[in-house]
């Protein structure tokens, strides 16, 4: 009995501590919060250069056999983007999507198949329209194509399946992710199991001559990804704080009640799917551009599950939370490579422990409220 109470007290203390910081932060005047946010963003941009004495151990290349720090940060940023997209689906609209990797793959393959001179699609286009050998769709055009195709696939998947209830949706989406991977692997127009190489970046096909987005230095890629992440965080925030976000939450909380209140659940669920898919597509496109080479087995079901874990561990519904979750889940296995073969076991254990001790996630979702407080008093007394 005493152990359980003490443990409970410890837990409460833990959540008080984290929640306390959050509360104190929210209590700050707006401009100070803005400043703090800007400082944080500046820190994020500075991160790949991290050399503050005492913090360098954070770098993944500070250990034997560690990976390139900026390269790992890039992967983290892509995962954060994924988590933010998936958070729209799972955290806001309450739809359990276990096949999110499908959209990631669609985005990656869109860029690869349209942008790479080695892709079968580009080769077919060259032949059909008598284009020169080096022709491929420019990267800047590939990205909107990727977003559009991802969104379309989101709608195509959502249209028939969104009337299914939670757990059925989960298995159907899981199936969708697997279908995408297997189809891409088995057909020839996608490059099959060999994958697609020479995927372009902002400066065109990967080449040693690229000035900024080159092959060796990953820092510009990280900064690009970080910028995209920040822009999309703002975009998703706008949605969250509008009728759309409210409708998503209402549908998540009680779909029937929302419908009776005049919200059309299907429409908003479909939008959540489409927006989530678009974000997944963007992250996939970024990922493929940076990698320069993708193959179907990179997009397996385990990755989907990892994505869901990022969202839930971080705190579904809270963007800061899911971003933290994504960062940790991408970063920790890299930093703790010393565990070698044990790291996935440790990772699983950590997942269980976090969920058991902090089921609401690392940074739980909390509805914004404070600003309204003073306005409530201004309402005229007469109705």
């Amino acid at each position, binding site marked *: 009995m005493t152990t359980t109470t003490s443990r409970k007290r410890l837990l409460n203390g833990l959540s008080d501590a984290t929640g306390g910081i959050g509360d104190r932060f929210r209590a700050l005047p707006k401009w100070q919060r803005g400043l703090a946010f800007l400082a944080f963003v500046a820190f994020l941009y500075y991160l790949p250069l991290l050399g503050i004495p005492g913090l360098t151990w954070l770098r993944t290349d500070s250990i034997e056999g560690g990976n390139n720090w900026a390269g790992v940060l890039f992967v983290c940023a892509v995962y954060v983007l994924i988590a933010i997209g998936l958070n729209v689906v799972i955290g806001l609209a309450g739809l359990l999507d276990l096949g999110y990797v499908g959209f990631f793959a669609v985005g990656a393959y869109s860029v690869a198949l349209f942008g790479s001179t080695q892709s079968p699609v580009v080769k077919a286009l060259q032949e059909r329209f008598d284009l020169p050998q080096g022709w491929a769709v420019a990267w800047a055009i590939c990205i909107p194509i990727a977003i559009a195709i991802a969104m379309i696939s989101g709608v195509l998947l959502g249209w028939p399946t969104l009337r299914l209830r939670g757990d059925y949706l989960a298995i159907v989406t899981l199936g969708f992710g697997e279908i995408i991977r297997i189809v891409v692997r088995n057909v020839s127009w996608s490059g099959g199991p060999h994958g697609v190489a020479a995927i372009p970046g902002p400066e065109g096909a990967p080449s040693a001559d690229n000035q900024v987005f080159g092959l060796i230095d990953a820092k510009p890629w990280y900064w690009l990804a970080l910028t995209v992440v920040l822009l999309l965080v703002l975009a998703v925030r706008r949605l969250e704080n*509008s009728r*759309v976000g409210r409708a998503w939450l209402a549908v998540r*909380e009680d779909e029937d*009640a929302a419908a*009776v209140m*005049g919200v059309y659940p299907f429409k908003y669920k479909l939008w959540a799917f489409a927006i989530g898919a678009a974000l997944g597509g963007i992250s996939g496109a970024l990922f493929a551009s940076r990698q320069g080479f993708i193959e179907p087995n990179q997009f397996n079901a385990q990755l989907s599950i990892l994505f869901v874990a990022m969202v839930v561990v971080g705190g579904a519904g809270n963007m800061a939370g899911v971003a933290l979750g994504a960062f940790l889940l991408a970063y920790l296995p890299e930093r703790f490579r010393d565990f070698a073969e044990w790291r996935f076991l440790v990772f699983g254990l950590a997942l269980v422990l976090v969920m058991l001790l902090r089921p609401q996630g690392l940074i739980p979702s909390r*509805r914004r409220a404070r600003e309204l407080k003073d306005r409530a008093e201004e309402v005229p*007394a007469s109705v």
Partner: protein
Amino acid sequence: MSDQNPDVTSEETPDLDEIRSSGPVPRQREVLLDVDHVTLRFGGVTALDDVSFSLYRGEILGLIGPNGAGKTTCFNVMTGVYRPTSGAVRFAGQKVTGRKPHQINRMGIARTFQNIRLFPEMTALENVMVGTDSQHHTSVMGALFRLYRKKVKPHELPVVDSTNGAVRIWQQVRLGCAKVFGISRHTLEERAGERKALELLKFVGIVGRANELARNLPYGDQRRLEIARALATEPKLLCLDEPAAGFNPAEKEELNQLIRRIRDLGYTVLLIEHDMRLVMGVTDRIVVLEFGKKIAEGTPAEVRDNPKVIAAYLGEPADAA
């Protein structure tokens, strides 16, 4: 608040005394809701058996009956949760049957739930604002890009009131931008929705708790919040499903007053309630269901004296509410 329901002019609002004195509501009154021979079967169970009744604009109709009589099922048919096996429900001359719940809501039917169904993780204010969704015209892309801007009326402009220099400059900039570029439809609608939600919270008496999560509200306030949320959809007809369940006498009296105030604003009310005193006190007419069948209809006085009703409620003590 009176501009909430533009369809109901003050002339049409029924005069309480007239209704009371003239007994049953005269036939020439406008029928708002028409339940027409509705039958609903689940497998072998007949939940509603050829139920018909009409609801007139501006009245408070009570729907009563012992447990399991089909009252809530009747609500569910009216709000599109269930599709009747046969028969039809018409609202303001339009067919309700076969439409989706949100479409029915937008026709003008709002409801509360017997077992409270708020959005527990949203604040009270947000709960009510969900109800205003049908009055928003911002699209998803509109909410994202906020490009569709409207010219602003003077009272909608941002205020410049800070004494702090830096903040004041910021406010000036915002004012300038609003004047030149207008304000996005999203922002205007959001403000209108918030204002309206606050008004409604005030109307039901819980404006002080606007920022609390719905699940943290006391029971009585949750009931009130449900009513506010339903009103936010600007309904013509408000269906209340046992709003007094679990209330003490003082709270019931407050509810009584609230329902009357709602009616006075021009809403038509359909009330399911177990508490006989409340029903008898507030309703204009009563429909009684038992085992899915309508067994009586009339003024409270008529229903009270109806032998079938007495039998239904008192004849089988085990079933008595």
